[in-house]
């Protein structure tokens, strides 16, 4: 995303310094506090800021580096499309706001070689009383090769293998976050909508320590996991534990978590800006004839190790067994002398560690941005629901199913519908088997 929008950087850094102590983000260079533009359409928000955006696509692939010039009341900015072809600009409001006209013109010299724009290179955009507007530029049609995916598999078998690998990878990364959510749900009954923000914090912290402070990736990841753990433990201590003491209803807690999710998410946008932070551009390995980022292969392997370790912890250690007892029936567990609140604290820590690892891997897998977690939250919820609310094994199986569904669906339907495909399957599964794939029967109507 563009850097041209940054204004007032110095004062911003001064104030951020105070907040940054908390997260140790102070030393971030000027790019840290830079543009606070909201993401492109499809990013998921109505917003009360005023945004013009669009995506420049050629043969189904977004094109980076296209230059645009936006003019209008109070606005005169140059933009460049990001690596997915998105461009976004935030414009100031005026008294005549919502009715102002903006002009977007495209610099034809920045087009890919041999491609021609359909129509002229200028578009007029009017907000017309909503907060966001978009406009499109189209190319003169040609026969596209390799339409659709980001990668260019040479054979259909390869594209299947690649989707399969991506699916397994996504499933494994989702599984850790889903187990985290499921653990908390199982022991406290809380459906935590702020769970996604733990993922975002993990991903963004990794980026910060690795790319901004230049630390080794492994150290950056470890610090990120530690920060997520503190964040998880902290939110339990400061918010959820007092609310449990107050005997606040679960629905109320769930809505509180929606509020918390909003606060944290937009705080992250305030700190880091609305653009996607590129975390990995590493080497690729060629396995079974397909090339994939080496880091993703390593992440997949590490995820398996973490999940195996977690399973051993749950089944072999005293605390693990007590955890399972509490999540099965906390009243019964309390009556056998287990300190339920202590177990809940431990559960939050375990859940936060798992979710932190998941956040690091999400960053490495999908890059890091302020809404990485929010974007994936529904998939995490879907995994937990599919697995049958509240069991770790169920959440893991559900996550694998969701991961594979998302990635394998790209073989049959447009890639921008892959998440929709997984969610449709979730709804259909609930129709047939309401207690989830591995779940206990919850209710008969």
């Amino acid at each position, binding site marked *: 995303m563009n850097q041209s929008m940054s*204004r*007032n*950087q110095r*004062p*911003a850094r001064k*104030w*951020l310094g105070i907040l940054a102590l908390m997260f140790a983000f102070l030393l971030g260079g000027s790019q840290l506090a830079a*543009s*606070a533009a909201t993401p492109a*359409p*499809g*990013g*998921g928000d*109505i*917003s*009360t800021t005023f945004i013009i955006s*669009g995506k420049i696509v050629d043969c189904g692939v977004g094109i980076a580096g296209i230059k645009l010039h936006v003019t209008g009341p109070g606005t005169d900015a140059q933009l460049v499309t990001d690596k997915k072809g998105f461009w976004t600009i*935030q414009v100031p*409001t005026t*008294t005549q706001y919502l009715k102002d006209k903006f002009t977007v013109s495209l610099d034809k010299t920045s087009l890919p070689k041999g491609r021609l724009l359909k129509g002229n290179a200028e578009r007029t955009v009017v907000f*017309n*009383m*909503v907060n*966001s*507007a*978009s406009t499109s530029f189209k190319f003169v049609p040609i026969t596209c090769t390799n339409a659709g995916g980001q990668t260019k598999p040479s054979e259909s078998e390869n594209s299947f293998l690649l989707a399969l690998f991506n699916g397994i990878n996504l499933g494994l990364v989702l599984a850790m976050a889903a187990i985290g959510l499921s653990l908390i749900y199982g022991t406290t009954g809380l*459906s935590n909508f702020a769970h996604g923000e733990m993922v975002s914090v993990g991903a963004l912290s990794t980026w910060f320590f690795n790319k901004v402070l230049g630390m080794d990736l492994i150290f950056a990841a470890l610090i990120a996991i530690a920060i997520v753990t503190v964040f998880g433990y902290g939110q339990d201590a400061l918010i959820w534990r007092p*609310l449990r003491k107050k005997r*606040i*209803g679960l*629905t*109320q807690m*769930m*809505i509180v978590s*929606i*509020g*918390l*999710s*909003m*606060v944290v998410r*937009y*705080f992250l*946008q*305030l700190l880091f800006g609305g653009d996607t932070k590129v975390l990995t551009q590493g080497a690729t390995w060629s396995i079974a004839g397909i090339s994939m980022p080496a880091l993703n292969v390593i992440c997949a392997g590490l995820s398996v190790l973490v999940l195996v370790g977690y399973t051993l912890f749950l089944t072999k250690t005293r605390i693990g067994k007590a955890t399972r007892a509490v999540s099965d029936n906390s009243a019964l567990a309390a009556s056998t002398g287990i300190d339920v609140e202590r177990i809940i604290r431990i559960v939050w820590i375990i859940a936060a560690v798992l979710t932190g690892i998941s956040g690091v891997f999400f960053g490495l897998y999908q890059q890091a941005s302020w809404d990485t977690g929010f974007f994936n939250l*529904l998939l995490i*919820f*879907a995994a937990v*629901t599919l697995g049958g*609310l509240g069991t770790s094994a169920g959440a893991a199986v559900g996550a694998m199913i969701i991961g594979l569904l998302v990635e394998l669906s790209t073989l049959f339907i447009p890639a*921008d*519908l892959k*998440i*929709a495909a997984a*969610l*449709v399957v979730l*709804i259909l599964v*609930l129709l047939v088997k*309401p207690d989830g794939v591995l779940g206990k029967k919850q209710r*008969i*109507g």
Partner: protein
Amino acid sequence: MDIIFGNAVDWLFQPITAAYALAAIGIALHFGFTGLLNFGQAVFMAVGAYGFSISVKVLHFGFWPSVLVALIASVIMAFILGIPTLRLRSDYLAIVTIAAAEVFRFIVSTTSAQPITGGPQGLNEYSNEFWAMNPIPAGHYKFWVWDYTQDDIFARAVSWGLVIGFAILLAILVRSPWGRVIKGIREDEDAVRSLGKNVYSYKMQSLVVGGLMGTVAGIIFVLPTSVQPGNYGTTLTFFIWTILLLGGASTVLGSIVGAMIFWSLLSLTSDLLSAGVDNGVITFISQNQIGDIRFMLVGIGLMLLVIFRPQGIFGNKKELYFNA
């Protein structure tokens, strides 16, 4: 300063405020009176917006047939959401409605659907027939700091007329024996079932009626503007919930007042912050970051509200619904 307050007061009566109020009245019926956790009110609004605008633009229907298409689509949507979930625990409805809303948004915004839904760009210019119905003579109508055209006034009159109409409808319903059954269901559906009421059917009826309110809200939302797929994300639903809880979930008027307070406060805070930044009073953020601060304020407001005043401004603590 006049302009800042003028804006805030203007937001009290904007068609968008009316749309949010009406969508919140729909969830008041769902959650406040029936106990259904509908986290996908955005999908009912989207069904209204797209059902109406696609009927006009693609199918070339007239205004009223297009409204009818949207309403029928809304009922179908309610059945799709309700059939798998209304027999299950309430959190299943939450996850399915939120998922359905996202699925709908993904589908309408995919580039493959561009010829019908306009893809990521959405749709516009479908309201000519609506504006043609405007009986107000053309011209500019000026009050204080505002300058309204005949269309601005018409859009406000129609949308607030609908809000008041549906509020009255809700008031009649919740005071009837039908309302007694759904209020029973929100507290303990087994008790109601043991008294011979078909709980599933009542929940479905509530889902349909509240969904229809969301759909009409969706039409109001886009009539004076354009259809933008990005507007129908989960944040839309969460804003509506904040409005509902601000006014009081189990009240009729709470949604209306909640929407007015919500939007004028948002306008006021962002205009004040913006003025502060321009004058150099506020130095720790840039203009770009005001939007983030506003969202954070909404989030903090929602948390404090639910913890310390769950019954909302107008609610009665004794009639407060929140499950244990």
